[in-house]
């Protein structure tokens, strides 16, 4: 693990993405102490103030400090994506491993299920489910998780398929180890690398979906700040307050870019045979 981190930090992209993600984690944990203002505090004297010394990124329609809101919003994005990716990874690994190891009818059914799920464009599926539920942070975490496990499942299945005829697995089976023990103790640890890559890419994807949903008004609900719902105000004030659109959007872009580049770097480090991306 330490070796892996060292390899990642050797590349420019790895250094960039790890720094951004560390910064994000730190600012999320320390949010109450490092944000200059209370993100909910309304200040009628500073409505739509442009970036200045007391408000480095300006203020919004209610005079709330944008920097503080972005710090809290990133924290929520991080929470949502961690839970969502957690759910999708657990489902994906479970179904993928089962399909790959058991084969036959189970494999056929799970693969069909994946095919079917992939026919629904994620956003449409999420919208349809959310229409029945109250939009909240909890809802979108779960819904994003439940609708984005198909990639991981396919990946793990392929990995398990290529591993299960290897000697060490056959020995384990001869030794009398049960299905779940073999999957858990022998197959999954060896399939960890591609799962790590897909977790990293999935984090970026989940943050994109969460912010898009919040922007459409069906994700995180105001007054709770989210990078997407700050941009709703940004759209309304496009002509007078550029900072309300530029900064939250840029924040999403940088965070997502960091997760995607981390995934790519991981892939290069774990799989040096393939052509490097940089």
């Amino acid at each position, binding site marked *: 693990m330490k070796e892996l981190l060292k390899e990642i930090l050797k590349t420019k992209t790895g250094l960039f993405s790890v720094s951004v993600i560390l910064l994000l984690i730190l600012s999320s944990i320390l949010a109450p102490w490092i944000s200059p203002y209370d993100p909910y505090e309304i200040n009628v004297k500073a409505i739509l103030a442009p970036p200045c010394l007391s408000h480095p990124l300006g203020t919004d329609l209610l005079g709330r400090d944008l920097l503080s809101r972005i710090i809290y919003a990133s924290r929520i994005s991080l929470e949502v994506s961690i839970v969502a990716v957690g759910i999708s990874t657990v489902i994906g690994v479970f179904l993928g491993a089962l399909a790959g190891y058991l084969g036959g009818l189970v494999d056929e059914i799970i693969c*069909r*299920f994946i*095919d*079917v*799920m*992939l*026919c*629904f*464009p*994620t*956003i*449409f*599926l999420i*919208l*349809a*489910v*959310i*229409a*029945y*539920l*109250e939009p909240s942070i909890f809802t979108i975490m779960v819904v994003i998780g439940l609708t984005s496990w198909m990639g991981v499942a396919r990946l793990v299945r392929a990995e398990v398929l290529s591993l299960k005829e290897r000697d060490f697995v056959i020995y384990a089976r001869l030794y009398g180890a049960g299905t779940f023990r073999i999957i858990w103790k022998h197959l999954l640890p060896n399939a960890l690398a591609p799962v790590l890559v897909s977790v990293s890419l999935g984090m*970026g994807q989940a943050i*994109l979906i969460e*912010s*898009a949903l919040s*922007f*459409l*008004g*069906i994700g995180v609900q105001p007054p709770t700040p989210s990078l*997407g719902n700050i*941009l709703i105000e*940004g*759209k309304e004030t*496009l*002509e007078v307050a*550029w900072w309300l*659109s530029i900064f*939250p*959007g840029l924040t*999403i*872009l940088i965070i*997502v*870019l960091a997760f*995607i*580049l981390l995934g*790519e770097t991981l892939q290069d480090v774990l799989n040096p045979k393939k*052509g490097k*991306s*940089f």
Partner: protein
Amino acid sequence: MLKVLFKKFLSMLITLWGITIISFFLIHLAPGGPLSPMTEFNPRITPEYREKLVKMYGLDRPLYEQYLKWLKGVLTLDFGKSFSIDERPVWDKIKERLPITLLINGLSLVLILLIAVPLGVYSALKSGSLPERVLTFLSFVGYAMPSFWFALLLMMLFGVKLHLLPISGLHSTIGYEEMSTLQKIWDWTKHLICPLLVATFGGIAGISRYVRNSVYEVLYSDFVLFARAKGLSERRVLFKHALRNALLPLITILGLSLPGLIGGSVIFETIFGIPGLGQLMWQSVMARDYPVIMGNLFLIAVLTLLGNFLADLGYALADPRIRTGARKK
């Protein structure tokens, strides 16, 4: 060849059946449905509303009966009536919006191919050079760019700063009737530029990267080495040998990227006020117009499935190994 197609067709039918099951399952999340403990206490849904839902989907009858009734409706394109004030049949609402969404997504697919393929081939050929590294980095930015933010930036640039392009709707509302055909086409074009840019941007990143990797791999394969060893010109090696093999899988990738493309419609149609299926979906979710939501979702899934099937067909027709029935061992 025929056997392959028949197999594909059969598996498409099975997937279609799966789509009906999932859609049917979702309906049962509806208030009053057997799977709806979460929505039971939803304050936004009144008892009358619930009753309307129960009646429409027959939620009080046995499951298989409900499924058969729903399936019969779906197969005859009868998705019920909208819950909005106009109470129009869902299919009518979808029918008038479908061409718009198909037009924009079709155009953007063409644009994506025209831009992404040359970009990808260039990147593979010049692998390691500065322009290639810049392009690769840009393609990651393209991946990570939230499409709705990109739309906002375009609005800011073209609409607010430069006053060059309209940023809402499909055509002008004032004076549109009096325009000549040519003027109308020009008016549409101007309105479509921003939405098309948004629809195309994300796709370029993914596809160009795919093309780059695929061409890169083929360029170092044995048969290209052999073609070079024969003394063929670089040009001939590239166009006659490498690209043909590298670009073939692109057909499948395009089929697979369909859901993403269509999903993007929700974002740019909502932002730019374009009356397509994406906007309809968003509006009906906001209004909790369940029949429209479910009809829309089902139709989009079927369209995606059809797109994938066509891609499979195209692949089978284009790949001589499948076309002639010869099997690679």
